[in-house]
């Protein structure tokens, strides 16, 4: 199978270039990550992140034939050849397919991704009704692979000011949590022309999310919450 993979070694290369690989795959190679591991066995200078190999850790997010996805859950069958593999767009490349995710995580941390509740902790746990818990479905499943955020042009142009779809999905995850008491502060923190409102609902994030989540819907929900608070 033919692959064309973006290569970049900051010590040697001025800019990234594409390197072709023609690889004989084994019948057991079902997913793109299997093929990449096989390529790495041939050329151990190829660098990529991977860990769980089952779509849970989010390490092997990359741009595959123009779309962001996780290599470990992308079936080889059906991929157009040569399979063009590039690092996630919009983030600095450290080497080959490895990008520097610091900016992504800085934005994620900026929304305070933890429960804020000043009541004394109860003896057992903070209980929720089934309906309250159900509101978190479609939000808590995010694995922070950055497929959505790096597919978002608003994040490409303003990565220091726009939180990005992944961070905003998590912001809504805590806004929607019945146990969280910082709703007002969280909404205030997102209220400026950039942090939330750079989202123009183009829905690249929904298209890119390998977990089938909908950050655009979460972002719209935050805007409605903000509106209800203001009006």
């Amino acid at each position, binding site marked *: 199978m033919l692959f064309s993979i973006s290569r970049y070694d900051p010590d040697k290369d001025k800019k990234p270039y594409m390197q072709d690989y023609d690889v004989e795959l084994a019948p057991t190679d079902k997913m793109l990550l299997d093929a990449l591991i096989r390529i790495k066995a041939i050329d151990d200078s190829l660098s990529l992140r991977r860990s769980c190999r089952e779509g849970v850790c989010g390490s092997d997010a990359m741009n595959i034939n123009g779309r962001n996805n996780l290599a470990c859950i992308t079936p080889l069958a059906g991929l157009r050849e040569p399979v063009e593999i590039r690092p996630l767009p919009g983030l600095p490349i450290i080497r080959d397919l490895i990008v520097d995710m610091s900016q992504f995580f800085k934005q994620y941390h900026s929304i305070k991704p933890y429960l804020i509740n000043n009541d004394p902790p109860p003896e057992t746990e903070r209980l929720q009704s089934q309906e309250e818990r159900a509101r978190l479905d479609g939000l808590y499943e995010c694995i922070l692979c950055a497929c959505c955020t790096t597919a978002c042009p608003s994040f490409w142009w303003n990565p220091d000011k726009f939180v990005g779809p992944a961070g905003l999905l998590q912001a809504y995850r805590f806004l929607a949590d019945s146990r969280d008491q910082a709703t007002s502060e969280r909404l205030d923190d997102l209220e*400026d022309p950039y942090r939330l409102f750079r989202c123009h609902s183009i829905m690249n994030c929904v298209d890119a999310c390998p977990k089938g989540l909908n950050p655009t819907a979460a972002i719209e929900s935050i805007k409605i919450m903000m509106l209800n608070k203001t009006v």
Partner: protein
Amino acid sequence: MVKPVNRIITGAHYGLRDWLMQRITAVMMAVYTGSLIVLVAVYRPEGYEGFKSLFSIQWVKIASLLCFAGLCWHAWVGVRNVLMDYVHPMFIRLTLQVMCIVALLGYLIWFLDILWD
């Protein structure tokens, strides 16, 4: 290079305000367009004179002006969004924003001139 996360405090509320205004003006324009189609279907104006007499009705003038003002506001928010996304050098952005405001104000005055000729 990783940049620090910035929250723009200046004009903090114009994020929500402009987002809301863009939706309100969109509804205004949709209602106006629908009403205009009905009006034309009912009055069946013929030629320039027909349309001129239709737009000489006072409430049609006022509705048209409100719609056009809404269109200008809608366009301003949209253009400023594009400039905020793509044009980062402050001087160039400011120049383009001023040009946009001048153009929109010009169109509004021109529109008034046509309606209240």
